[in-house]
């Protein structure tokens, strides 16, 4: 390989060559002049005899070139010059692609981190979460122990539970979220500590035996200022001393997607942390994840059979607590109940983003085709001067690739910035919810691939055009004036592109409509003017016995605040982030009270007497509770209308009827309340019961609802002062209920937002597409239009001639897109709440949107067509 030194000698070689050739022609000229020719004639003859000097020079240089790379570099430089000459085209093309590739990179980033590799642990492919086939993953601790000890398919099983504690490290105690895990959690996941050590199976020696806390890297950074001496320090967790033993590595964020744990505690210390413990209650399913690596060589199906075997044994041994449930395996990360919708949603987004890219390619393809036909004269000249068609195609291809790479780079840049924002975004203060989308190498690779593929896609559009060019015809006749009535490639591309865009616009409108409907449906509560106060008496060391009395004092203190209308207390407010409780209910006649015979698994709310007024839930029948519905009174319950209809026959005669709970207690229904939404706004109507706080186990952790039309800030201050006068150390979170509701609206909002963004992108793409087409067709036919005007055509006729075709194509494309979009929204309806394609408003909206897009996009070309001055045009030619 001797091209390396040649590169440095290159310019000398080129200079020598040019000089030599110049001297050659000079010598020939002089000789011809010596034979009696005029200088001009001699010069011409000499050049003819020499042949095509440029070509000779190029070929001579080619001898020395590092062949492909060098000529590609040449192409690139030429392409850059060409693109600089038409900045409008270049910018439009790059922006279009940047948007399309950016959207795809973002969606891929989300897909990549949520679906493809949700948990950042080694050997993630053999890590499974044990789900029930009903998609929920909740399990009780005793069941977990049995599963762990009796199954043979897993190396080891770990379990974890979400937990919120007050952490006191000497300054003001802060309420933070984290995991209570089985002590083998880190061993199962094979996580090495970043600092100190992590707790392990051998730390677990019975109840409250492991007062250790492990901090997450981000919490250690933000709240302990990355202090390396933190290991060994004793902090107070809900007033109990725990030793910080280590910090997890930064890349590990737990096995529960969307939830960034701040700490990890051994679950055996649950009794200390919470003041009571669920570790002995087989019926209390508090564990949100049980997970482990499959043994090498064990197939998932075998493991499921193994789990079902153990499950059948548990059902036989504990029929009251265990229903017949079949197991399934899920991927760690997305919790079972979330996994399916998230996966479906992200897949739908991927498809839509792919459509965007296709539309962008179609758009650029027609732009390039238009450009190639504008340049057909140049192409013809180059062909006539001896350039090969291959060379010209390579040139066009180079331009396309340059644009696609520039667009890809811009899109990638934007999307990485956006993903980083998303990654650090905490939509809710106080809850470590986040969308874990750290951009990685895969994203760069995908963006590069997309750029290259789309570049190739739209650069092949004008190929046929170039191959067909007949240089002689073009040079002789000027622009080929085949004023096409024929269907060209460009028309097809435009229709395809508009159809795709219409699909996007339709789906985003359907999604947005669905959201609007969801937001305006009746949730069975009236959150306006209500302040939520979250407290946890267990965090301040109260034991069971004195909780109820304190709660009553708190309610009375709040009611005494001027301007407060109602005060309610409840275990969890509906649609709150705290989750919900559910309970098995049986018909009064059922005597075999195993869970399999339950009439329903109803939402269960534990409330104070005035809760209904505070929450704004309407009482339809019967009465609400009083403080006299206490332990000595007969057990009473309120039910919602769905419960009454489903289990008691009907709402109107439900009052006075009874239902049973798992321990056999008969509970009298004393009232019926309106239906509502409890866990998420998208759920189907569920049965719910409301029980008096006076007849239940004390809550400790509870929410107070304060209804008042006074200024929220003042109320918040008064609430704080009043509750702190009861207990100065009580941890309080005060916020507006509407703000809290954002939490349950979050998924639907995010879904609609992303679909809306894609819809807007689709609309923008169709504008540029139609605009390009219309502008091109006007500029092509300016002369014809000029003649028409000169011959007396009216404005309407001119417009018809100029824009009829693009508008017809727009109509065809929109109709096709609308149809496809309606088909597509059937799929969408599974994801977006209340998304229905059979909505006249959506249909009208899409049609209107497409018409508006058409008007916007053809406005400027239409103005240009109308402004045609025949005199100027005809004089020019």
């Amino acid at each position, binding site marked *: 390989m001797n091209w390396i030194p040649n590169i440095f000698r290159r310019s000398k070689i080129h200079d*020598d060559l040019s000089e030599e050739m110049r001297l050659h022609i000079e010598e020939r000229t002089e000789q011809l002049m010596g034979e009696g020719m005029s200088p001009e004639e001699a010069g011409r003859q000499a050049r003819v005899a020499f042949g095509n000097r440029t070509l000779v020079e190029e070929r001579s240089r080619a*001898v020395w070139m590092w062949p492909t790379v060098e000529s590609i570099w040449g192409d690139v430089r030429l392409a850059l010059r060409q693109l600089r000459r038409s900045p409008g085209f270049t910018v439009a093309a790059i922006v279009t692609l940047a948007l399309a590739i950016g959207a795809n990179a973002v969606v891929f980033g989300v897909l990549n981190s949520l679906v493809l590799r949700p948990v950042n642990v080694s050997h993630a492919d053999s890590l499974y979460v044990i789900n029930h086939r009903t998609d929920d993953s909740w399990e009780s601790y005793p069941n977990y122990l049995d599963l762990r000890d009796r199954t043979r398919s897993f190396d080891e099983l770990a379990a974890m539970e979400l937990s919120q504690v007050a952490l006191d490290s000497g300054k003001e105690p802060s309420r933070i979220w984290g995991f209570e895990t089985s002590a083998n959690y880190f061993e199962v996941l094979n996580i090495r500590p970043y600092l100190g050590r992590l707790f392990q199976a051998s730390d677990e020696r019975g109840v409250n035996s492991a007062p250790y806390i492990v901090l997450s890297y981000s919490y250690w950074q933000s709240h302990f200022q990355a202090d390396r001496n933190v290991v060994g320090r004793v902090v107070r967790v809900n007033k109990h001393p725990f030793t910080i033993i280590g910090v997890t590595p930064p890349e590990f964020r737990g096995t529960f997607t969307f939830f960034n744990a701040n700490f990890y505690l051994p679950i055996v210390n649950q009794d200390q942390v919470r003041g009571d413990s669920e570790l002995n209650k087989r019926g209390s399913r508090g564990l949100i994840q049980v997970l482990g690596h499959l043994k090498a060589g064990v197939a998932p199906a075998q493991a499921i059979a193994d789990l079902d075997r153990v499950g059948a044994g548990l059902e036989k041994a504990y029929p009251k607590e265990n229903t017949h449930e079949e197991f399934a395996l899920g991927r760690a990360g997305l919790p079972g109940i979330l996994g399916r919708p998230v996966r479906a949603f992200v897949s739908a987004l991927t498809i839509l983003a792919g459509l965007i890219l296709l539309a962008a390619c179609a758009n650029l393809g027609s732009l390039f085709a238009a450009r190639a036909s504008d340049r057909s004269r140049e192409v013809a000249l180059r062909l006539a001067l001896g350039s090969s068609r291959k060379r010209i195609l390579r040139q066009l291809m180079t331009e396309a690739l340059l644009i696609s790479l520039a667009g890809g780079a811009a899109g990638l840049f934007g999307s990485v910035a956006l993903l980083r924002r998303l990654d650090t975004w905490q939509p809710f203060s106080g809850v470590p919810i986040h969308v874990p989308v750290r951009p990685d190498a895969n994203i760069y690779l995908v963006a590069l691939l997309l750029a290259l593929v789309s570049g190739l896609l739209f650069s092949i559009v004008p190929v046929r055009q170039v191959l067909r060019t007949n240089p002689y015809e073009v040079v002789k006749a000027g622009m080929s004036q085949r004023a096409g009535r024929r269907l060209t490639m460009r028309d097809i591309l435009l229709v395809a592109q508009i159809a795709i865009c219409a699909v996007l616009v339709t789906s985003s409108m359907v999604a947005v409509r669905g959201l609007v409907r969801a937001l305006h449906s009746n949730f069975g509560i009236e959150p306006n003017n209500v302040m939520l106060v979250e407290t946890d008496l267990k965090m301040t060391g109260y034991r069971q016995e004195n909780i109820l009395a304190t709660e009553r004092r708190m309610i009375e203190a709040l009611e005494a605040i001027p301007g407060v209308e109602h005060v309610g207390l409840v275990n969890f407010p509906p649609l709150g982030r705290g989750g919900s409780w559910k309970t098995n209910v049986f018909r009064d006649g059922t005597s075999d009270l195993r869970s399999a015979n339950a009439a329903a698994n109803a939402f269960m709310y534990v409330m104070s007497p005035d809760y209904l007024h505070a929450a704004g839930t309407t009482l339809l029948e019967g009465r609400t509770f009083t403080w006299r519905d206490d332990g000595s009174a007969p057990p009473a319950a309120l039910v919602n209308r769905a419960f009454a209809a489903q289990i008691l026959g009907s709402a109107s005669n439900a009052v006075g009827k009874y239902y049973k709970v798992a321990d056999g207690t008969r509970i009298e229904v004393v009232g019926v309340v309106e239906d509502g939404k409890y866990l998420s706004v998208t759920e189907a109507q569920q049965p719910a019961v409301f029980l008096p706080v006076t007849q239940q186990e004390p809550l400790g952790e509870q929410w107070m609802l304060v209804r008042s039309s006074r200024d929220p800030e003042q109320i918040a201050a008064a609430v704080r002062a009043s509750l702190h006068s009861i207990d100065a150390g009580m941890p309080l979170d005060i916020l507006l209920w509407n703000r809290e509701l954002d939490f349950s609206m979050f998924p639907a909002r995010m879904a609609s937002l992303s679909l809306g963004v894609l819809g807007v992108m689709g609309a923008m793409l169709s504008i540029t597409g139609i605009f390009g087409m219309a502008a091109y067709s006007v500029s092509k036919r300016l002369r014809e239009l000029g003649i028409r005007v000169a011959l007396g055509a009216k404005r309407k006729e001119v417009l018809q001639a100029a824009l009829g075709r693009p508008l017809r194509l727009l109509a065809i494309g929109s109709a096709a897109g609308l149809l496809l979009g309606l088909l597509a929204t059937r799929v969408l309806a599974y994801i977006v709440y209340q998304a229905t394609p059979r909505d006249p408003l959506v249909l009208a909206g899409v049609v209107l949107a497409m018409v508006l897009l058409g008007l916007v996009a053809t406005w400027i070309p239409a103005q240009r067509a109308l402004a045609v001055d025949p005199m100027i045009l005809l004089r020019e030619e």
Partner: protein
Amino acid sequence: MRETTPRDLFPGALEMMILESLRRQPAHGYALVQHIQQRSNNLLQVEEGSLYPALQRLLKAKQVKAEWGVSSTNRKVRTYQITAAGVRHLEQQISSFERMFEGIALVLNPKKATAN
């Protein structure tokens, strides 16, 4: 001017003629063209420019070397000289070319060839 349409030379033919000319005496590009046209009795109408890519190939293969100088007519010229490698290459080429030519002649005109 030309009776017949010019025919492309086969690959390597021009190089061979250049090397042969240079073996007789070093020359610059213009002189080489003149020489080849004269020696072929103007039967070979070589486009003058096509000489240069060929010369570059020979330079790259180190079969000739070039030097700027001044000619007898006091012109600035770049004179080419054949190298030892060039001579070896030329001899190989000539012998293989002669065999090829003989073969072609036999196929085209068997009688005449056997008469020889």
